[in-house]
């Protein structure tokens, strides 16, 4: 059995989100081919874990996807493709899949399955199915979900969201530290997270 964590987003409790994390995945090519063939059994959002900075942006994407689904304003064909699409800052679906979706070289994988009525999706059903099809090591996801950001490739993420290097060594950065007392060490990852989430919310406006 694969380890699957069920997230329940506040205010969207009726739509639990099943998330599984794998490392050392060896059959990414197979999984991708199933996605391309639109095999209904493989209706997941398969993400490359190196592109996920931390759990919050991922949960935000999920929540935006659910909202779009519930208000029938999906911009792609399925909720799971919408999830991949919403991660990317631009409006190009193919590009979103190339950057955030599973590729033939993916070794660290996040699989997300949304439970949307009337289809019933349980933690067990997802766990059983993923254990059968994914060849890789299942990684448990803790309460805070921090494990989802374990393999983040910060340089790649910065590039895709066009983030600068946190203002380090620039005049701007120095002045800004002075604003709040100087001694404060700025939490760079948290700042990246904020900006990424802002970009996601503002996408397409």
């Amino acid at each position, binding site marked *: 059995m694969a380890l699957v964590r069920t*997230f*329940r*987003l*506040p*205010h*969207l409790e009726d739509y639990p989100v099943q998330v599984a994390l794998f490392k050392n995945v060896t059959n990414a090519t197979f999984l991708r081919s199933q996605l391309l063939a639109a095999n209904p059994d493989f209706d997941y959002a398969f993400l490359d874990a190196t592109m996920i900075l931390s*759990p*919050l942006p991922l*949960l*935000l994407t999920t*929540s*935006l996807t*659910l*909202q779009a689904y*519930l*208000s029938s*304003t999906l911009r792609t064909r399925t909720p799971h493709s919408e999830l991949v699409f919403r991660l990317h800052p631009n409006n190009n679906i193919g590009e979103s899949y190339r950057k955030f979706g599973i590729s033939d070289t993916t070794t660290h994988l996040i699989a997300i399955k949304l439970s949307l009525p009337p289809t019933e999706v349980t933690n067990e059903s997802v766990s059983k199915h993923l254990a059968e099809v994914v060849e890789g090591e299942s990684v448990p996801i803790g309460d*805070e*979900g921090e494990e989802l950001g374990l393999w983040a490739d910060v340089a790649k993420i910065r590039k895709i969201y066009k983030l600068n290097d946190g*203002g380090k060594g620039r005049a*701007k*950065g120095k*002045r*800004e530290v*002075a*604003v*709040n*007392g100087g001694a*404060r060490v*700025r939490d760079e990852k948290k*700042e990246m*997270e*904020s*900006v990424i*989430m*802002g*970009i996601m*919310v*503002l996408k397409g*406006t």
Partner: protein
Amino acid sequence: MAHSVAEPVPTIAPLSPPSPPPTDRPLHTLPAPFTTSNLQLLAQGAEALVYKTTFLTPNTPCVVKYRPPKPYRHPILDKRLTKARLLAEARVLVRAGREGVSVPRVLGADWEGGWLVLSWVGGGSVRQVLDGWAERVKRGEQKAEQALMDGEILDLMRRIGRCVGRLHDIGISHGDLTTSNIMLQSPSQESGPQPPLGGEITLIDFGLASHITPNSADEEGAVDLYVLERAFAATHPAAEPLFQEVLKAYSESWKGAKSVMKRLEDVRLRGRKRSMLG
């Protein structure tokens, strides 16, 4: 013959407000996916209702800013205005966050539904700090001059000045810069009567904020400072020298500050509004 009991004075039937015109958006009911459970009303302004709740995870506290429909407006215009204002606020917040000004993070939004989710800012407001300070001065615990010697509060003022300067430097005017909208955020402590002065200065409520165009930079900056000055003056007369410290730090904070300060003189003479319209 017994006296007849005096006739009761006829009471006037209470006036009932006219029923609101029909609208297809919910009126003071919450927009999906929010429900009254797990939601706590914090404040109501002219435009928006502010609720506290959690978002994304059960331990991420946040603020939901909901702009309910205004039934007296044409529905199409109403939607458009609501969307434009929400978007403007979100854009300014994301931009400011990107430039390193401490502001709430945007956690979610629905332009059609009329709501915006922002991260929770703990701690207290500068207003609370000033009120506490003014109270101490009034009680005579400290003479005003002595209180001013209190280096900590002066340092706070300088930090406020620099923070506002930075905001203007990146081309954003706040639009409603009062002491209640400047928070002192400390990670350790939840809101108490007296937030510690060392907290991180965080600006909130960007509902009236805008991007500054180069030819209105002085004006909008000066109006921000003027509004803040009035907020200080409203706290206590003794707070006046405190604001001087804010101005001093502001004028050294960015290169456009000098001309903003000059414009502030004009604004003081004529008030916040430039044109006589509206």
